[in-house]
């Protein structure tokens, strides 16, 4: 791996060999391997000593993989990509941009934040070559998230499908449970499961904890239900701020979610009572399925990475998932999802080349082949996805009849989407605010 992130510790020889083994696992050599075929990269041109800073919230294993995904591009074009990943990037970008110290490129994890950065005049419109790629490889709605007032700014990058309900196929088989087709089936199933309640077992396990972003998994529940009960048009109005939280459509979604989340007979398997939802981190949230302390867990496709090593994620494996059911059998399939966007803050040929590459099918295939993520890029070969769930998710994203809507809280203004909607969900679970109060509270924080 050729990057700042790859420093070798050559302290004791033993450690060095350990590091080598690990670096080997990550699939890294040092520098571009001699057999890189630069044919795919000729279109981007060649550069001398140009470096581009990419700033993102992606850290840990995913950071290694993303750095790996552009290693060949760097070798062939001569552009050095300095990757800086920090969890604080979403907050820090406001500071850096305001101070005129913005990075060249940021991978923005939320359209809401992207819109704000664009509105504040920090983001540079995307070059034609980027727009051509997006027209070719993405649907109109995905392009729309990176567009403001008819000007196209940022191409989508990766995606996730939200609203999976995780379960254990073995548990279902042993108890004769069926994968539900409709929401009513799901509630009936939950009722059946609750008959088996013990001191530690409840049908659902839920975790909303996520540091200072605690509450976001709750917004996913509401979004899934709004899309299924009120439909895509109402969903769009809600996200745009035209439909208030305190409207019958949204209230209905809260009430439906509350039938599960606020019911002590249904939650919180493996953790305790209703209020343990907020003190359980979302990464621990689904683990009781493995101990048999709960049967169902609602969480996005990226939860695949949370299962302990050795857990088989497959229709006949240790865990598998179905998409949150629709309201009635003749409704269309609907899913919510999330994704990232590549915004540039400076203008240069090298930055454009990087943006163009990141919006290409070449990059999407390179990255997905490394595992762990998916993309809504139409040029993507689902077979490359490293897992069954990844394949299933990509097929959903590429499906023609699926109603796809972007994660609502990510689209709302930051004051709501990354702030009061989260804390509102927390208050609602803990009981410091009832449904009415939460809805009016969130409405009151609209900028």
């Amino acid at each position, binding site marked *: 791996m*050729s*990057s*700042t992130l790859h*420093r*070798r*510790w*050559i302290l004791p020889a033993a450690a060095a060999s350990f590091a080598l083994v690990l670096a080997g696992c990550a699939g890294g050599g040092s520098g571009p391997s001699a057999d890189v075929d630069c044919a795919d990269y000729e279109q981007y041109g060649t550069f001398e000593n140009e*470096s581009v800073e990419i700033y993102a919230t992606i850290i840990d294993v995913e950071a290694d993989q993303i750095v790996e995904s552009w290693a060949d591009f760097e070798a062939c074009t001569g552009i*050095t990509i*300095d990757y800086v990943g920090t969890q604080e990037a979403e*907050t820090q970008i*406001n*500071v850096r941009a305001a101070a005129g110290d913005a990075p060249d490129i940021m991978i923005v994890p939320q359209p809401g934040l992207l819109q*704000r950065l664009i509105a504040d005049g920090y983001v540079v419109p995307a070059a034609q070559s980027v727009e051509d790629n997006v027209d070719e490889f993405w649907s109109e709605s995905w392009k729309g998230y990176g567009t403001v007032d008819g000007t196209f700014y940022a191409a989508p990058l990766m995606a996730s499908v939200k609203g999976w309900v995780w379960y254990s196929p073995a548990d279902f088989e042993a108890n004769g449970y069926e994968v539900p087709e409709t929401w009513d089936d799901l509630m009936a199933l939950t009722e059946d499961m609750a008959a088996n309640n013990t*001191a*530690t077992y409840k049908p659902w396990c839920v975790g909303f904890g996520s*540091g*200072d*972003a*605690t*509450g976001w998994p709750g917004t996913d529940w509401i979004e899934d239900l709004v899309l299924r009960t009120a439909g895509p048009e109402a969903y769009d109005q809600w996200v745009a701020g035209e439909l208030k939280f305190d409207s019958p459509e949204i209230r209905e979604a809260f009430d439906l979610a509350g039938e599960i989340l606020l019911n002590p007979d249904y939650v*919180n398997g*493996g*953790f*305790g*009572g209703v*209020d*343990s939802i*907020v*003190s359980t981190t979302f990464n621990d949230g689904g683990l009781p399925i493995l101990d048999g302390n709960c049967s169902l867990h609602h969480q996005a496709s990226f939860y695949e990475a949370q299962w302990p090593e050795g857990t088989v994620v497959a229709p006949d494996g240790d865990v598998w998932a179905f998409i949150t059911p629709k309201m009635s059998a003749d409704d269309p399939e609907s899913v919510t999802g999330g994704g990232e966007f590549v915004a540039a803050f400076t203008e240069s040929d090298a930055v454009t080349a990087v943006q163009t590459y990141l919006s290409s099918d070449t990059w999407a295939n390179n990255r997905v082949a490394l595992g762990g993520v998916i993309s809504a890029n139409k040029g993507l070969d689902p077979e490359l996805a490293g897992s069954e769930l990844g394949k299933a998710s990509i097929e959903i994203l590429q499906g023609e009849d699926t109603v796809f809507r972007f994660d609502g809280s990510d689209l709302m203004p*930051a*004051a709501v989407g*990354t*702030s009061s909607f989260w*804390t509102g969900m*927390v*208050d609602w679970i*803990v009981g*410091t605010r009832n449904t009415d109060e939460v809805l009016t509270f969130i409405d009151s*924080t609209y*900028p």
Partner: protein
Amino acid sequence: MAARGDFWGGLWEKFGILIIGLAAFAAVIGLILFLVDKAPKRGRDVLQLVAFVAPALILLGVGLIYPAVRTAYLAFTNRTGEFIGLDNFVWMFTQPQIITTLINTLVWVALVPTLSTAIGLAYAVFIDRSRGEKVLKALVFMPMAISFVGAGIIWRFVYEYRAEGFEQIGILNQIIVWVGGEPQQFLINSPWNTLFLIIVMIWIQTGFAMVLLSAAIKGVPTEIIEASRLDGANGWQQFVNVTIPGIRPTLVVVVTTISIATLKVFDIVRTMTGGNYDTSVIANEMYTQAFNRGEYGQGSALALVLFIMVLPIVIYNVRVMRKQREIR
């Protein structure tokens, strides 16, 4: 920066920067002091004064005074930068959430300085001249050496909650279970959760108070203690009549410093509850408003309230300083 250097290359480079930085600083300061010392007699005093005070003042002017003035101005503007008068303050005192935040901050500032100082002082007196004093001091001082991030991790193992019937992994709930109680959600149940956060701050600050006060106690002249003992004073009377007056200036400094640190508390709340469950304090709310929600005006207004809250502490200290100057 060696963007692609190995660890050792980076190491030498970094230490190179360190050495150059230190040398440059020493050279500049040394040169300034040397030059003003060699200046002609007339005006030398003024030059020397400038040399001693200017570096600090220039830095403070750029890095704190200018931002403070800017913040004070922003407090009266909205997100688009228009002047809106007192609207941000009206907003503040009409939002129940912000009122809670203000009250929480007052609770923090009432409890942390007093308790940290009291415990630190008691401890310093108890272990004074005892065997193993160094070790005992180090044990209580250790939290000072732990970052807020680290403290958040440590206290997670104290407050962690698991429902009844599960094995507890937080020591506090385990103790409650051992004595037959029900496990508690320490960080969620308002209003007590604020107290559990305050405990963390006290745990950190006590070491600071203890170290300074212990040094002050050792500075109380033994002759006075001797004299009061000969007058037949018992231990407590000695403490109240001799030790306390002897360390009064240090007490004022300690309480002041901890009070200001408490008013600015941010990390503990941020890492442990994120300001949820009615535990937010002004500094955290300010950060949330300004950086998460992009409401710089509202964030600045909150900062201004912090300024106002610290005024009494400043005024008291000014009076103490005046007295000291008169004595000299």
